[in-house]
């Protein structure tokens, strides 16, 4: 029973971070109607930024959020503005070509980081990286618990933004009907860039929060792009609420896989869930709302 509860806790904590990754990808998916296959690579860049902040300036990873998130926001905006929006203007290209572009962007990000930092494994060891506290006999990683709390706060902020603000309404309007949104006086291209920036910033938050308990190397983006993709499909492609559910499900599945099948099964479990969803539940977790 203890093992079960312990696994449950680990899965939920990790799932909170996966939810951030999935929510970011879903936001991009909703507005641009494409899967951003550079999502994990963007997260990887944020992790390196966090590493630099910690290693060279001694900045705590939680404070580094204030650097990594804005930096990735700008990176996302730049990518949308200078590489993806121009593709949409070329009438001879299908919008799907944007997906290929994101694959290319992911490769470029990975190789640039490899060039600067080499392929060595890096990590950020803080005073609390290995700390834990106990509730009963269940241990909670201090770092992951704090990360989970921050992830919840960021998610709540995201919902507030989407539901209550003009920017959020504009984002949803562009997602539902671009042409009608333009007729409302919404600057559609700017909203696209903003959505890409927000999605990247959410991935950045997850990366930064994960770093104290994780390790870092340039190719870490790929597995996280795959996870983001799985979560987005699990969530029913385009539903933010669904993506959060999807993140939790994947976090739990990986945790239970690692405990009951073996550490090496983490990724396999995710892919099995992915196939199962495609086969048996193509709509993903019920679309509760489309925010």
């Amino acid at each position, binding site marked *: 029973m203890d093992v079960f509860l312990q696994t449950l806790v680990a899965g939920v904590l990790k799932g909170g971070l996966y939810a951030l990754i999935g929510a970011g990808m879903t936001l991009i998916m909703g507005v641009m109607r494409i899967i951003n296959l550079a999502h994990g690579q963007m997260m990887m860049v944020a992790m390196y930024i966090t590493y630099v902040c910690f290693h060279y300036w001694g900045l705590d990873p939680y404070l580094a959020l204030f650097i990594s998130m804005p930096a990735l926001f700008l990176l996302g905006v730049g990518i949308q503005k200078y590489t993806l929006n121009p593709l949409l203007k070329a009438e001879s290209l299908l919008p799907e070509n944007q997906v290929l572009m994101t694959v290319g962007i992911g490769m470029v990000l990975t190789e640039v980081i490899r060039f600067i930092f080499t392929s060595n494994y890096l990590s950020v060891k803080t005073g609390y990286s290995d700390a834990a506290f106990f509730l009963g006999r269940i241990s909670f990683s201090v770092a992951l618990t704090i990360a989970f709390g921050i992830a919840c706060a960021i998610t709540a902020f995201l919902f507030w933004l989407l539901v209550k603000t*003009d920017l959020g309404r504009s984002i949803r*309007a562009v997602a539902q009907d671009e042409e009608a949104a333009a007729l409302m006086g919404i600057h559609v291209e700017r909203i696209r860039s903003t959505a890409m920036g927000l999605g990247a910033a959410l991935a950045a938050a997850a990366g930064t929060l994960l770093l104290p308990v994780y390790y870092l190397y340039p190719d870490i983006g790929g597995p996280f792009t795959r996870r983001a993709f799985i979560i987005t499909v699990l969530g029913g492609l385009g539903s933010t609420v669904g993506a959060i559910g999807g993140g939790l499900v994947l976090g739990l599945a990986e945790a239970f896989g690692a405990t009951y099948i073996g550490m090496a099964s983490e990724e396999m479990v995710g892919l099995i869930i992915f196939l199962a969803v495609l086969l048996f539940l193509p709509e993903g977790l019920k679309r509760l709302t489309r925010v």
Partner: protein
Amino acid sequence: MLEVDGIDVFYGDAQVLWDVGFEVRPGELFVLVGANGAGKSTALKAISSLIRPARGRIQFEGEALHALEPHQVVERGVVHVPEGRRLFPEMTVEENLLLGAMTRRAKAKRRSSLEWVYELFPRLQARRRQPAGTLSGGEQQMAAVGRGLMGQPRLLMVDEPSLGLAPILVGEIFSIVRRVHEEGVTTLMIEQNVQQSLAVCDRACVLENGRIVLHGSGQQLLHNDQVRAAYLGL
């Protein structure tokens, strides 16, 4: 106020409008009539810069609209209520209305615009928290016109507001458009209900196969033999 001057419009290689020109004067209710596929909606899209004319000019109060982006056209006060309503179906009625007031000009008056729209369409107020996709056809059209009014239009362009409505609702929508116009909003309306729209408008023109074939006052056109034969079945 609005001058469309000799525009040619293409979709890809297919030309849809040939040398189309007309003028909407301040304060008037102007109607553009024509059969299905004549190019009426295309003309409105050109005015809102959703599509760029290959030739010709579109000017609003002396400024060239065809050089602007769609959101800049709205900023000038030229508001387009598109064909088929195009509400944001998963958002509530009130969210749709608020989205009608996204320009700086309209945002400043958002509260009072909302009161004005709810006064014009009490049914929208009763359904303000309902997703727009669940409204009836008539209510959706009211929401679409209301959303247009939220933009504080100086020129309101309405594309076939009566599309798909029962005759009784058509009358209601027409009287609303007329009421809005009477409140001082210059209005450009597209209609297939030729008889009714010519009867309420100040001036009109007839579009046939992408060309303007007739223009004049509503009464003149109502009594024009060509119009009577082609559109009124008389």
